[in-house]
């Protein structure tokens, strides 16, 4: 099967991937909601500095997977180790401390409606670093807004921003704590193709500039190809295939072929 998405989507691998050191390690993760088994024994290691893309159809368990990594959901079985800490063994304070090193970009951005962009960015910062002066807080806010390319939105309310701007501010809100790991839930969902490419570039930029490792959940092939060093195909709660983008889609597996073809048709 051809993997002929446009050349401009091709990811240039960063130099600093260290596979001797897993920042995320999942073993035999199982999760059910009632009688519906969503994850059926997932194993995953993410290297330091690596962007891993998990591709899959809606309802395949992608979002559940990153919520388990962030400690928002608990698996029924299996172990989750993040930055050498087993999430199940942490008390509330330790989990809170660990979360300050994990950035989570939500599908709907999840900006706080009642707060300006400034207040949205300030919110996690002042709660995690209580000894910062006003000047230091302002400087940090200005820096992340500059990094996501939206310095002029500082006094705007979330309702005044476009979908792409909301995504960027959502990412800025996580970057303000200088996370070691980024989790992106459908970063390009609902965006036009041009804005999607900008968000993909931003994800790569964040990886380079902040030296983060990332798990990117998406069903968008262009996003997968342009942001991931490794792509994993998730289907019906199991990893079907993983490798580089080309390796994953160079197959005769009907599920993967269908996913590729439908995605390509909808992109066209």
């Amino acid at each position: 099967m051809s993997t002929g998405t446009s050349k401009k989507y091709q990811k240039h691998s960063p130099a600093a991937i260290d596979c001797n050191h897993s920042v995320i390690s999942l073993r035999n993760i199982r999760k059910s909601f009632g009688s519906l088994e969503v994850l059926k024994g997932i194993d995953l290691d993410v290297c330091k500095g690596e962007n891993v893309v998990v591709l899959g159809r809606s309802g395949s368990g992608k979002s559940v997977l990153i919520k388990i990594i962030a400690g928002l959901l608990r698996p029924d079985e299996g172990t989750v180790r993040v930055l050498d800490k087993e999430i199940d063994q942490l008390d509330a304070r330790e989990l809170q401390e660990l979360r300050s090193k994990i950035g989570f970009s939500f599908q709907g951005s999840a900006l706080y409606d009642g707060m300006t962009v400034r207040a949205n960015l300030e919110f996690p910062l002042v709660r995690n670093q209580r000894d910062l002066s006003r000047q230091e807080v302002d400087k940090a806010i200005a820096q992340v807004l500059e990094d996501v390319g939206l310095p002029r939105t500082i006094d705007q309310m979330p309702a005044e921003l476009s979908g792409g701007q909301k995504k960027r501010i959502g990412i800025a809100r996580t970057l303000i704590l200088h996370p070691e790991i980024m989790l992106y839930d459908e970063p390009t969902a609902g965006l036009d193709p041009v804005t999607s490419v900008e968000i993909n570039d931003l994800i790569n930029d964040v990886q380079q500039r902040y030296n983060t490792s990332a798990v990117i959940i998406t069903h968008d092939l262009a996003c997968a190809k342009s942001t991931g060093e490794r792509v994993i195909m998730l289907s019906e709660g199991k990893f079907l295939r993983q490798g580089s983008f080309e390796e994953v889609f160079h197959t005769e597996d009907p599920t993967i072929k269908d996913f590729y073809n439908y995605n390509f048709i909808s992109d066209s």
Partner: protein
Amino acid sequence: MKVFFLRIYDIYQFSLRFWKEAFLPPYEYKEVFNQFFEVGIKSLSIISLTGFITGLVFTKQSRSSLAEFGATSWLPSLMAIAVLRALAPLVTALIIAGKVGSNIGAEIGSMRVSEQIEAMEVSSTNPFKFLVVSRVLATTCIVPVLAIYMGFIGLLGAFVNVYNNEQTSFVSFFQQAFMKITFLDLFTLVLKSAIYGYTIGMAGCFNGWYADQGTVGVGRAANMAVVVSMFLIFIEEMLIVTLINNYR
């Protein structure tokens, strides 16, 4: 039936968590004061208007019955008893349940369905403390203040009617009004209002916290916050009055 008991268990867990989080640092002072403003200052106009009209109309309606016995001079003390023992705490609580309770339910509900609560959690902030504890503390502390204020405004409404008919002076009206009021009445007013405030805050927060199914869930959370808190307020009123009357 199973769902009902699971819900009761959730409410129990939710209340328990509130008391635990309320006393454990760090404290969200800024958000608590922000909520004092939201619940208190922003409700002043409606409380003033309702209180004044309640006092005025109640006095007007009572006048004819008392006049039959030539007992209109009892109006100030009758009004003080009616307003401070029953009307002020109950009417204040019902207004706050409608205005603030629904607002809390809708706000927290919409934050739940748009993943803002999860966003707080992953930003290393305790959303329960920030959203629930601050709001429940605010309603518990502010409803008694508003009820006392409404009591005063209600008596002012009563005074306007009495002054128009009997030209009783302001000082004389309030002296007569407070002749029959005891410390127990004032204590009960504060205690009842605090319990109603806690109920309103908890009902709003609980229904918002467990909201699901998108915008429908948000609407339902706002609606349930008002219905449940009003229902509980009437039950609490009955129980507290029965209990306190044993000490009179």
